[in-house]
């Protein structure tokens, strides 16, 4: 995120930047349903809809909270570096249509809707770790509480004027710490409380639709251009364009690295590996893309692709059930990208701070470590506490019977696919003629 300094020369509304940022906001919005499909294809048939809904509901809950108080908590006037507040922004009531955001050339409304899409996506990311087993009500409450006590404050730390990480000089261009490490650590915190799926490590739990996974990954990649290139809040000096290029480069490199690792380790170039590698690259370049060169982006992508490919196997070794590898991809990828800024920052992009390989020493690396581990620890602990409280009150998990039979039917009264011949979904024969009602008096009864 760009530094929130006032640029005296640029205080007029720019139609170009405003239009650019509205498009970027729409692109970031697309990431949430894209994530839903990315996750939805990876679960078994019986929990497809629940997986889609866990992401989709965030578009409702967080959007409303953002208007009521979220924007104010994240970007309002700072208190002690920890939280913001601005009573004029409650309900977005005191914001003028042409009022500009903090010295930038875009209206406050544009900035807040762009940031809203980040706030929506982040809790949705957590849901991948909880597939198949969480009550929908408990999840919805968790999203509301987590956004309030974890996401809004952490966004303030990292991006808000006066936030402690922002003031320290932690570089997080578009959300490596505030979004990915935050969500990955939360996923770990919650699954430590709720436990494994029934049948974890015993039953086959292979993805039910890799084409959906590829569709989701492709749309995520597309939406991510808004996520990353938009985070400079304008298009005047080329940094946003550098970010766009780096996003593409790192993602391609990470996909290749994951596939190469897989081919050597497991003997095949898998579709899921290509999709996962791409997402790992997107995650890793998110904090770094404004600070590194395109060659640096290749390095970031390769490191993230390899590390994440290795990390997803850890759940089997340690026995925690991170269903869809939120920790392996988002936490590990986010940490990799955030820390690599300390090595690969060129000093010519987003800020003039150089990393170790560009003569800047280890100074920036330690700052990155502070940001990474503070967000990780805070999110992990608070998320575990929230999950624990919800579990002790309304209960986090569905019943064993419902989990085995399928959470879609139990929680949503729907199923994703109709495989029955009679229903017509998978029938190969011509539709059976509709039964004709015969009045009772006309029926022949065999004696």
């Amino acid at each position, binding site marked *: 995120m760009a530094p929130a300094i006032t640029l005296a020369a640029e205080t007029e509304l720019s139609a170009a930047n405003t239009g650019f940022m509205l498009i970027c906001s729409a692109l970031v919005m697309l990431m949430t349903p894209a994530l839903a499909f990315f996750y939805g294809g990876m679960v078994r048939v019986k929990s497809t809809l629940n997986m889609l809904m866990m992401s989709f509901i965030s578009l409702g809950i967080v959007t409303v909270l953002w208007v009521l108080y979220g924007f104010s908590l994240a970007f309002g006037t700072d208190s002690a570096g920890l939280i913001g507040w601005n009573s004029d922004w409650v309900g977005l009531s005191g914001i003028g249509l042409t009022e500009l955001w903090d010295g930038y050339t875009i209206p406050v409304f544009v900035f807040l809707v762009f940031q809203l899409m980040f706030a929506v996506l982040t809790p949705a990311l957590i849901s991948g770790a909880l597939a198949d087993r969480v009550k929908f009500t408990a999840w919805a409450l968790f999203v509301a509480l987590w956004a309030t006590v974890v996401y809004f404050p952490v966004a303030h730390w990292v991006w808000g004027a006066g936030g402690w990480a922002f003031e320290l000089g932690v570089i997080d261009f578009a959300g490596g710490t505030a979004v990915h490490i935050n969500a990955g650590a939360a996923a770990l915190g919650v699954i430590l409380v709720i436990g494994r799926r029934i049948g974890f490590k015993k039953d086959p739990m*292979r993805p039910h639709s890799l084409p959906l996974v590829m569709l989701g990954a492709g749309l995520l990649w597309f939406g991510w251009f808004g996520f990353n290139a938009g985070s400079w809040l304008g298009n005047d000096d080329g940094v946003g364009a550098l970010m766009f290029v780096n996003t593409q480069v790192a993602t391609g490199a990470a996909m290749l690295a994951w596939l190469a690792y897989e081919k050597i380790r497991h003997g095949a170039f*898998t579709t899921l*590996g290509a999709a996962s590698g791409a997402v790992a690259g997107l995650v890793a370049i998110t904090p770094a893309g404004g600070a590194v060169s395109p060659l640096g982006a290749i390095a970031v992508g390769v490191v993230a692709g390899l590390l994440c490919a290795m990390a997803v196997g850890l759940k089997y070794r340690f026995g925690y059930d991170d269903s869809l590898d939120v920790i392996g991809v988002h936490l590990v990828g986010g940490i990799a990208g955030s820390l690599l800024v300390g090595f690969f920052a060129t000093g010519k992009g987003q800020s003039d701070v150089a990393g170790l390989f560009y003569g800047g020493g280890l100074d920036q690396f330690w700052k990155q470590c502070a940001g990474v581990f503070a967000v990780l620890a805070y999110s992990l602990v608070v998320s575990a506490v929230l999950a624990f409280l919800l579990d002790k009150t309304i209960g986090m998990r569905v019943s064993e019977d419902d989990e085995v039979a399928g959470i879609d039917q139990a929680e949503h009264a729907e199923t994703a696919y109709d495989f029955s011949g009679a229903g017509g979904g998978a029938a190969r024969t011509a539709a059976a003629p509709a039964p004709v009602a015969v009045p009772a008096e006309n029926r022949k009864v065999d004696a």
Partner: protein
Amino acid sequence: MKLITAVVKPHRLDEIKEALQAFGVHGLTVTEASGYGRQRGHTEVYRGAEYTVDLVPKVRIEVLVEDDDADQLIDVVVKAARTGKIGDGKVWAVPVETAVRVRTGERGPDAL
């Protein structure tokens, strides 16, 4: 009469059908089937997690023939089904007491 049953690779079905027609067989029944023999299916990998898929897709072909034709017909099926690779399938014959053509009520060899 004999019932010849062949459980074979799905992609050989067309060749087998043609060979049977050339031999003079008038009718047959085809069912989608799944199973395994010595090859025991295959392995799939998802993010490093390996799944063994035991049951592989097959087709089951059934033909009724007169006793004298049975051996020759088995040879025809085997020749058409063979790829030489593992998983080519099996063919067997069992005696049939009687057969009836439903439309006409003809019995025995006349019903074939």
